[in-house]
C-alpha cells in the first residue's frame, strides 16, 4: 500500500510537469497581447519593448524559457515573478491560499454532507413529497451557474444590497485568525453557492445508488436478521457510498474551477480571484502558478480517493 502511494505520488510529479509544459505552450501560442507590449506604455518605441522582453526572458526560445522555469521550481521552489507587480508568484499564492482553502474545504464539506444526506432522504422517501422537492431543487442547483446563483444570493441576503439583510455581502471576507465569527459569517453564502452544484450531483447519485443497494439481497438478509430499520439503512448506505467516492476526485476539479467565479462574485481575495485577474492581464507566471496549484489539488484528491477506496472496499487491493 505504501509503495502504491509512493508510486502514485511520483507519477503525480510527472503529471505536474506535463501540465506545466502544456499550459506553458498554451498561454504562449494562444492569441493574447504580448506581455511586454502591455507594459511598455502608450506608443512605445521598439527598443523599450525589446528591453522589457529581455527583462521578462521572452526573447529566448520556448524550450529555453521552459527549462529556466523548471530549474527555478526544482532548485529554489520559485514559480517566477508576476509580469504585473514583479512579486514572486510563490508569495502571491501563499498570501491568498488561506482564503481559497477556507472557501473550498468548507464548500467540499457542505457538498459531501449535504449532498449525501439529501440523497439518502430522497432514496428512502422515493416518489414522496420530500424526494420530489429535493430532486427539483437539485435540478435547479445543477443548472444554475455559480455567478448567477451568487448574485441571487447577494441580492437576497447581503447586508448591503439584499432584500433580507442578514449576512455580510461581497468583499466582507476576513481571515480566520483575525475574527473567526466574521470569517464564518462572510463565508456562509460563498460556501452554499460553491457547494450547490456538486452537492446536487452527489444527491442525485446517492439517491440512485442507495435505491439500488436497498434492493440487494444482503439488505433482505439484514432485515431477516431482525435488525432495526436504521441499521438496515446503514448497511445500504455503506454499500452505496463506494461508487460515489470515485467521483469525488473528479468533482474537486469542477469545484476549483467554480471557486474562481465564486471568489470574483463575492470579492474574496483568493487564488481564483488572483487567477482571474492574471488572465485578464496576460500575467503568464501567475496563471501558470495557479494552474499548477489546482492540478496539484486534483492529483492529491484522486490519490486520496483511490486510497480511501481500498480502505472502504476490502475486495480492492493495490499492488
Amino acid at each position: 500500500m505504501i509503495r502504491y502511494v509512493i508510486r502514485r505520488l511520483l507519477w503525480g510529479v510527472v503529471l505536474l510537469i506535463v501540465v506545466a509544459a502544456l499550459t506553458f505552450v498554451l498561454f504562449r501560442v494562444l492569441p493574447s497581447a504580448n506581455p511586454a507590449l502591455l507594459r511598455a506604455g502608450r506608443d512605445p518605441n521598439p527598443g523599450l519593448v525589446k528591453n522589457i522582453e529581455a527583462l521578462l526572458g521572452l526573447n529566448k526560445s520556448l524550450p529555453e524559457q521552459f527549462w529556466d522555469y523548471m530549474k527555478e521550481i526544482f532548485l529554489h521552489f520559485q514559480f517566477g515573478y508576476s509580469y504585473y507587480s514583479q512579486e514572486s508568484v510563490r508569495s502571491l499564492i501563499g498570501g491568498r491560499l488561506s482564503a481559497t482553502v477556507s472557501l473550498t474545504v468548507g464548500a467540499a464539506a457542505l457538498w459531501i454532507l449535504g449532498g449525501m444526506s439529501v440523497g439518502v432522504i430522497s432514496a428512502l422517501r422515493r416518489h414522496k413529497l420530500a424526494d420530489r422537492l429535493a430532486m427539483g431543487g437539485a435540478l435547479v442547483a445543477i443548472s444554475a451557474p455559480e455567478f448567477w446563483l451568487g448574485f441571487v444570493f447577494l441580492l437576497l441576503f447581503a447586508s448591503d444590497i439584499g432584500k433580507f439583510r442578514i449576512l455580510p455581502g461581497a468583499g466582507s471576507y476576513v481571515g480566520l485568525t483575525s475574527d473567526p465569527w466574521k470569517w464564518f459569517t462572510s463565508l456562509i453564502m460563498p460556501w452554499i453557492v460553491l457547494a450547490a452544484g456538486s452537492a446536487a450531483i452527489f444527491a442525485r447519485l446517492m439517491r440512485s445508488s442507495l435505491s439500488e443497494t436497498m434492493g440487494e439481497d444482503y439488505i433482505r438478509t439484514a432485515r431477516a436478521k431482525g435488525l432495526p430499520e436504521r441499521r438496515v439503512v446503514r448497511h445500504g448506505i455503506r454499500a452505496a457510498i463506494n461508487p460515489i467516492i470515485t467521483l469525488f476526485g473528479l468533482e474537486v476539479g469542477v469545484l476549483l474551477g467554480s471557486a474562481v467565479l465564486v471568489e470574483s462574485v463575492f470579492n474574496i481575495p483568493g487564488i481564483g480571484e488572483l487567477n482571474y485577474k492574471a488572465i485578464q492581464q496576460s500575467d503568464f507566471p501567475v496563471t501558470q502558478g495557479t494552474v499548477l496549484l489546482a492540478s496539484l489539488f486534483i492529483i492529491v484528491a484522486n490519490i486520496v480517493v483511490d486510497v480511501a477506496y481500498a480502505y472502504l472496499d476490502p475486495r480492492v487491493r493495490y499492488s
Partner: protein
Amino acid sequence: MSAREALLRVEDLRVEFPTEDGVVHAVDGITYEVHSGRTLGIVGESGSGKTVSSLTTLGLTRRQGARISGRILFGGEDLVQLPEERLRAIRGNDIAMIFQDPLSSLHPLYRVGAQLVEAVRAHRDVPKARARERAIELLELVGIPDPRRRVDEYPHEFSGGMRQRAMIAMALANEPKLLIADEPTTALDVTVQAQILALMERLQRELGMAIVIITHDLGVVAEMADDIAVMYAGRIVETAPAARVFAAPEHPYTWGLLKSIPRLDAPRSEDLMPIPGTPPSLISRPFGCHFHPRCPYAQPEHRRIDPALRPVPDEPEHHVACLLQAPVRRRLWQRVNSGETPAQALAEAGLPGAPA
C-alpha cells in the same frame, strides 16, 4: 402429525401485489402446518409463490406494498397482524431464514464475524466480545475450519459452500425454533449441496428446530422433508407425507415434476418427460384449474371448474386439488410411471385426449 400443536400454522394466506399491469396474485390461499423438529418441503417452479409465502411469514413483503390476508399463527400470535416492531423481535430470533445465493446475501463490505455479531446483538444484550466468541462458536458449529481466523475474513474470501455455512451460522445465532431455507443449495456445486443438506439435518437433530425448505428440486426434499407441499401458480396443489408423494403422487403436476428428473433406478431407455408450456401469469390466471393449459389429462370441464384441495380417499394426510376422479388418477399414474406417454395412458384409461 396433527395431534400436537403446530409450531407454525398458515391459514388461507393470500399475498397480492398491485402493479401497473394489474394485481399479481403471488400467493392465493394456502394453508399448511409445520411442527417442531420436522421438515416441510415446499416444491414448485419459479413464480409459484413459494418464496413470497415464506418472506411474508417474516413480514418482509410488507414494505413492497403487498396486500396480505389470512393468518400466520406462530407461538399464539398472528404474524400477519403483528406490528412491525414485535415482528422484528421474532425475525432472526424465533424464525430465521437463509437464501439462495449466499454471495449476494452476505454484505460484501462487512467481515463475516461482524455480520454474525450483529445477528446475535440484534436480539441479545451482550457485549461485543461475548458476541464475537459466540460467532466463532457458530462458525465451528457449521463446520468452518479455523473459525478464529475465518471470523475476521470477508465473504469474498470464503468459498461458495463456506458462505452458505456462514449464512446458516448467522441464522442459527439465536437458536431459532423455525428455519426457513429458500433454495439453500441451488447456487452451489452438487458435491457441496449434499454437504449443506447433511449439515442442516445434523443441526436439526442437535437443536430440534423445525425447517421449511423451499426448492424446485425434488431430490432435495426427498432427502430432507418429512412432509411435502407442491405449489403451482400461488396455490398448494398437493400435500402429503414425503414418502406418499414419491410412492403415490396424485396431481398431474407432481407427476410432471417426478418424471422430469433423471433417476438412476429407471431403465435407460426411459425418456425424461418435461412439463410442456410455462407457468401462467399470476396477473391473469387461466380459468378453471390453473394447471389445465399444461395438463395432458385435462378434460373440457376443467377449464371452468376451479378444484379445491381435498383429501385423497383413505389417505387423510394426503390432499390434492385435481378434478380427475381418484381411481382414474391412479390408473393414469401407474401407466405414466411405467414409462408410457400421457397420450397412451389416456387412451388406456378410456379418457378422451387433452384439447390441443
